[in-house]
């Protein structure tokens, strides 16, 4: 592994810092304690996961022709591959702002007709209330 290139270390079993992995694990409220082997395995598994996610996304992504790994490749993986489905929430598909605005517009139009009346009334009520308190 390339860790050998850096300074004098011959090899390293795991390159991610165990202390940080422990902090993340402990941030889960139901976990009370973790033994050293479990901590090591989780760190190592996370490394394997990073490798796997990167290679899988590269192989199945479109960036391959351009010799690049892009965000789109990753979000595509989260969407298409069942094993990586748990990432769907943090790797959402990107859409154009113009498309998003259209979506918002459409949603608005659907609910608008009824809501319009209610909102107008509420506003009036508030105005009155303010007027009262000032007057008294």
């Amino acid at each position, binding site marked *: *592994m*390339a*860790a050998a290139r*850096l*300074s004098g*270390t*011959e*090899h*390293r*079993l*795991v*390159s*991610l*810092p165990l*202390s*940080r*992995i422990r*902090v*993340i*694990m*402990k*941030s*889960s409220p*139901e*976990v*009370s*304690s*973790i*033994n050293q*082997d*479990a901590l*090591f*395995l*989780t760190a*190592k*598994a*996370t490394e*394997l*996961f*990073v*490798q*796997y*996610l*990167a*290679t899988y996304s*590269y192989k199945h992504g479109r960036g391959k022709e*351009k*010799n*690049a*790994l*892009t*965000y789109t*490749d*990753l*979000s595509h993986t989260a969407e298409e591959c*069942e*094993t990586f489905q*748990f990432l769907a929430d*943090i*790797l959402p598909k990107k859409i154009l702002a113009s498309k998003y605005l259209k979506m918002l517009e459409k949603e608005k139009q659907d609910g608008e007709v009824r809501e319009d009346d209610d909102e107008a009334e509420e506003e009036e009520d508030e105005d009155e209330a303010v007027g009262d308190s000032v007057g008294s």
Partner: protein
Amino acid sequence: MAERPEDLNLPNAVITRIIKEALPDGVNISKEARSAISRAASVFVLYATSCANNFATKGKRKTLNAGDVLSAMEEMEFQRFVAPLKESLEVYRREQKGKKEARKDKDKKADSEEQDKSREEDNDDDDERMEEEEPNDEEEVDN
């Protein structure tokens, strides 16, 4: 162990190195892709922890152990990790055993260094510092 949001991130330099090693030479990894993978890795840790914890709870144990993590991998459909993990664990155990014997008199010093680690890791953009964190490795690697 104070918990700030950035404590739940993994060091970018290390993540980038792992990605680069996994992909063919010369592949360009966008900045966005790197940070996405880094976030994914943190989520993976939490997911694995929670699965492993379920196994520990089932076994009426309070401490997560190696078996729990391995069972979690299977449950998460990462069976392909199980064999390489078992292998590394064996090497790790051997190493730890060697360390313990070599360390006996250095114990106190190592302990106090360990406590400082988490604070130092905040913005590891340089690899050198990563190397310094475990000063004992260099001497004991060859056994």
